[in-house]
């Protein structure tokens, strides 16, 4: 019941957001929601069915291009389709693309599968610029949204509500999928493929369908993006998009239904927030991802659930350890960020030009302070922070000893 209440209030917040937020923020929310849907569609394949795809941008992009073409057709009067239903075209295109690509990719399992998905996406990425009529060449394609009833689609808010409706609907459908008999079988594919086929299921066909469904929802997400931006370019097929959905999903946690949503939402929001402050945002994403893979394994959502559980069980020792680990952890993070930001400012082209012109190293500004790059202290402070933080983390863990709960708190239950 509590969960339903939480979900209802999230939906209510999403619906009310445009009333208080500026147009720019609504735009950010729109892209964040699209990232959420993409991550959840991706997780159906990679988390639920255990088939790690490194080329999911392909289906996202196919959906996007299909929607742009549909919008152009509507604009020219060749096609009649109410504007809010346009993302559906992306879903159909994603489904078809996913079934075709899935046929090949699911011929193999495990790491081979991952490599095939990567190769398939690269295949499309390499061919796309040469197919001008479909992918619009290097420039890409642009179009206009047509008005629909009282929605003239002239401002962000109309687009935003359409996106919210689609995302909520699709997440609902994904949830329902997990509750169907086939949805249960999907998890069986992840757990023991051999058993699935020896129970009488056609493993290949089963996998193709899962792939297709995942690609369909990815296509809707891509369609929503095209719908929002009214333009698309072949660069969306590149590795960057495929990588970001992997990062979002596993930072959020693939083992929890809303895990990928958490990851995508947090990253998309943070991304637009800090992208003005730093150009290293992707690097921090990568470092966070590596850290989570190494120390937690199952992502932020699972961490949250564990903390909630510890509160319920009144497992104070585990909670105390977490509280103890937080400040030194933040200290390490602050040290790393400072170090990287200083480095990036010194390596900046403008700065390098100044250095070569004046033959001196002027101080750089960070957090409102001036840091002298030639002073030892500038570098020693962040390095000491990292060292001290890491030392304290180590100390806290070894103090806690080999108690089961605190161990699990850090290492995560990877077997799960």
């Amino acid at each position, binding site marked *: 019941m509590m969960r339903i209440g939480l979900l209802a209030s999230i939906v209510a917040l999403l619906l009310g957001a445009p009333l208080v937020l500026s147009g720019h923020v609504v735009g950010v929310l729109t892209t964040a929601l699209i990232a959420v849907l993409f991550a959840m569609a991706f997780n159906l394949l990679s988390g639920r069915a255990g088939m790690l795809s490194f080329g999911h941008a392909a289906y996202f992009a196919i959906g996007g291009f299909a929607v742009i073409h549909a919008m152009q057709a509507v604009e020219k009067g060749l096609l009649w389709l109410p504007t809010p239903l346009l993302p559906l075209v992306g879903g159909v295109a994603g489904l078809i693309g996913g079934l075709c690509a899935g046929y090949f990719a699911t*011929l193999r399992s495990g790491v081979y599968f991952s*490599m095939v998905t990567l190769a398939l996406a690269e295949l499309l990425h390499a061919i796309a610029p040469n*197919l001008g*009529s479909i992918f619009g060449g290097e420039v890409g394609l642009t179009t206009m949204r047509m008005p629909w009833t009282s929605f003239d689609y002239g401002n962000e808010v109309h687009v935003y509500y359409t996106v919210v409706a689609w995302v909520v609907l699709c997440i609902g459908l994904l949830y329902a999928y997990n509750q169907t008999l086939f949805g249960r079988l999907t998890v069986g594919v992840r757990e023991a493929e051999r058993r699935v086929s020896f129970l009488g299921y056609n493993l290949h066909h089963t996998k193709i369908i899962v792939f297709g469904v995942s690609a369909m929802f990815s296509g809707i997400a891509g369609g929503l993006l095209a719908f929002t931006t009214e333009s698309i370019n072949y660069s969306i097929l590149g590795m960057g998009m495929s990588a970001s959905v992997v*990062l979002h999903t596993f930072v959020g946690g693939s083992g929890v239904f809303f895990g990928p949503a958490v990851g995508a939402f947090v990253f998309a929001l943070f991304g637009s927030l800090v992208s003005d402050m730093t150009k290293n945002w992707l690097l921090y994403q990568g470092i966070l991802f590596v850290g989570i*893979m*190494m120390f937690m394994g199952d992502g932020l959502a699972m961490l949250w659930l564990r903390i909630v559980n510890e509160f319920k069980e009144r497992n104070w020792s585990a909670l105390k350890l977490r509280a103890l680990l937080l400040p030194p952890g933040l200290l390490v993070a602050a040290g790393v960020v400072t170090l990287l930001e200083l480095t990036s400012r010194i390596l900046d082209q403008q700065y390098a030009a100044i250095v070569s012109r004046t033959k001196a190293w002027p101080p750089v500004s960070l957090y409102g302070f001036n840091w002298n790059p030639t002073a030892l202290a500038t570098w020693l402070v962040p390095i000491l922070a990292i060292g001290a933080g890491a030392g304290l983390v180590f100390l806290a863990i070894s103090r806690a000893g080999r108690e089961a709960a605190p161990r699990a708190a850090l290492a995560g239950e*990877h077997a799960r």
Partner: protein
Amino acid sequence: MEFIVISALNGLVYGLLLFMVSAGLTLIFGMMGIVNFAHASFYMLGAYLSFTIARISNFWLALLIAPLIVMAAGMFIERFMLRRVHGFGHSQQLLLTFGIAFVFEELVKLFWGNFPVAYRPPPLLSGPAFSLFGTNFPSYRVFVAAVAIVLLGLLYLLLQKTRIGIIVRASVQRPGMVSALGHNVPLVFLGVFGVGAWMAGLAGAVGGALLTTSPTMSGEMSVIAFVVVVVGGLGSLLGAFIASLLIGLLTSFSVGFQVSLADVAQLFGYGEQARQIGGLLTLEISSMSASLPALLMLVVLLTRPAGLMGDRN
């Protein structure tokens, strides 16, 4: 004739370079079951480091030092990162190496900028080596091929003639057995990972000046190296060698082919119709050369799922 010989030579050079990267990937995959996404990052790191070292001192020193730094980085990753998640399953390892590759790419952008750097062969090797049919063949290409062949010879001797080589080959075949015989498998893993990284680093150090040194080079190399591993067959070095040369030749020949499906249709008298349809039909093979490796991989997966030299077809 000229086209064929020059293309064959170019393809051979590219194929040999490819093998320097994919050999390590294959060995690591065969032994540890890890598809190391960060392997092509070692290639990129080798190129960037030797570019910088060559600028500070000279090219030859760069060739010596850069791969060693890459090797150290590789061993660090194996010892302190991959080993940590060992036992959490292959997908966890795959994801971790994927993340490491991502971080490497961003670090390269941070330190060297998000654009290609001007990494060029040293003056000594910038001239032509010989000329064929009036075309000069650059001596740097000959040098790259020579480095690769020497490396290939060393690798062969190491694997075939030394005790370590026997252990490595045995653990590719039967990973469990080797530790049962009392060998220190973690140490062997560390060594193989280091050597693999070193080879990729060296490939980057020489290849960066031949091709381009840019932040996207690792992503591109990753895909092609994976294609080599799949086409060659699981953990088979011979397979990787054949597949590397095959892809090298395929790429270099396709660049010169100005033929499209419509031209083929022309032979049967349907040229006009095909040209009207356009799209894929009028796409020239030369403009598809970047996607040919991936295409080859699909064909192999359909016809020989375990690869050319895989024994589990």
